[in-house]
């Protein structure tokens, strides 16, 4: 029996729907899968440690034979401080560049700038780390007369440079999505270009811009190689911009290869992975709540 055209179309329609549904579900499955496996590796240790000491102590001596200590307090401070500093640099530049691209620059300059910014996004993080070691570090020593060039500020600078392209491209999309009628209405009311940006575009695009910034945060907090190379990788709570630090991600990258599978050290590194999971989750959740809060208003 041959299928009629109509039946064939109905079948293919169903098939396509199924495929799309699978794609959607797979995203959820993968996230939970990753979470599950990381959790499975780290969980046994969760029962053994004092959670307070784990989170707040700055004693990280995992390789000691007699008295190993597993406090990640300094690592959390390291990760958070480098991310916050990076964002303090990247957000003004990123959002500013996005506004310039979408509102102020001519079409030819725009093409050139976009290509350059995309190029910036394509640089591998290890190359950034290399730049941090060989360019930024001597520069910091020369300009600020600090003893060590690989430090918090160096890492933050690199992270800022790495997240700016993301903030710019997503932010520009968000601004482009604001209907032209808004711009025209504001211009017809006698608003200057800057007033249009400040009073109309930024409020209209704030959700998209927030998403852009948070993607930048995600990029910064998850970055490993560049911070491993450029922050000094030294466990301590920083007291100035030019103190070396160590981050959660860099610790995993540097130490996981040296541990034996199933050891305490191994498990605690997975626990750090879980902690990173939790941090990104909190960042995303806050963003969601903020966006919803804005909408309700």
């Amino acid at each position, binding site marked *: 029996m041959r299928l009629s055209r109509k039946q064939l179309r109905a079948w293919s329609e169903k098939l396509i729907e199924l495929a799309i549904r699978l794609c959607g579900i797979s995203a959820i499955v993968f996230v939970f899968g990753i979470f599950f496996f990381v959790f499975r590796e780290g969980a046994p240790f969760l029962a053994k440690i004092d959670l307070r000491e784990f989170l707040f102590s700055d004693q990280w001596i995992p390789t000691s034979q007699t008295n190993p200590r597993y406090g990640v307090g300094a690592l959390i401070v390291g990760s958070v401080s480098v991310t916050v500093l990076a964002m303090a640099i990247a957000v003004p530049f990123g959002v500013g560049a996005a506004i310039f691209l979408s509102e102020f620059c001519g079409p030819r300059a725009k093409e050139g700038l976009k290509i350059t910014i995309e190029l910036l996004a394509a640089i591998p993080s290890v190359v950034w780390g290399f730049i941090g070691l060989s360019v930024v570090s001597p520069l910091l020593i020369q300009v600020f007369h600090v003893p060590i060039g690989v430090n918090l500020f160096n890492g933050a600078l690199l992270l800022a440079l790495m997240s700016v392209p993301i903030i710019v491209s997503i932010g520009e999309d968000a601004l482009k999505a604001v209907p032209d009628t808004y711009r025209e*209405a504001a211009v*017809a009311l*006698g608003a200057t270009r800057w007033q249009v940006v400040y*009073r109309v575009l930024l409020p209209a695009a704030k959700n998209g811009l927030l998403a852009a910034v948070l993607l930048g945060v995600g990029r910064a907090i998850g970055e490993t190689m560049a911070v491993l190379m450029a922050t000094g990788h030294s466990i301590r709570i920083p007291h100035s911009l030019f103190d070396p630090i160590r981050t959660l991600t860099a610790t995993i990258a540097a130490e996981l290869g040296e541990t034996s599978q199933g050891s305490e050290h191994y498990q605690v590194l997975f626990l750090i992975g879980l902690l990173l999971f939790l941090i990104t989750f909190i960042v995303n959740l806050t963003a969601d709540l903020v966006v919803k809060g804005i909408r309700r208003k």
Partner: protein
Amino acid sequence: MVTPMAAPKRIEIQDLRLSYGGREVLHGITLDVEANEILAIIGPAQSGKTSLLRCMNRMIDVIPEARVSGTVKVDGVDVRSIRNVCELRRKIGMVAPLPVGLPLSIYDNVAFAPMQAGVTGTAELDVLVERCLRRAALWDEVKDRLRTLGSKLSGGQQQRLTIARALSHQPEILCLDEFSIAIDPITTARIEDVLRELRSEMTVVMVTNLVQQARRLADRTAFLLNGDLIEIGPTEAVFSDRPARRETYDYVQGLFG
């Protein structure tokens, strides 16, 4: 022959030609807008009515491929030579065919232009916002929810909001581009009353597809067809049995368009 004392001219347009990327849409328009009159511009779609309005407050500038020649003078000054275009745009209030609420509250929509112009006192703004909303026949409906988003209003209310907004910078000339497209006949009638009142203090230019609206409201009517000004004259003359041009008669009688 003695001509009656001519009213002062607010807008003088001389041989205005406009093209979008080589396609000419206005073929040499010459017309004047007199002070304190309501001038209606009628004509079928695509005849250049909106483009003509845009040339008056230089909103045509935002379209990159538009080329303008000829002169448009507002109060005797060629708009091309105006440095502070924002000032020109504040002088000319513009109401778009479809209401565009800025993504702001009702209050802020109306307070937007005065705030840009430097009015900052809350009390002063409150008075201004109320007066504009009253004039646009919207105050009673929104006075208890001035802080909600303008986009939450119905289409007709939003249109009146844009009228209130256009009045907020105290324009001397008010241009309305098919303002009644999105609103019901009763509201339309109310706004028409408002426009008649406004005539004593400002000049009104209205583009409309509804020829009867022009007949009801306008002192003079201009008929635009395919980028040419067919006829301009007192509304009674344009709508009479013997307008100057045959096309005008056919159009206002509904024989085409």
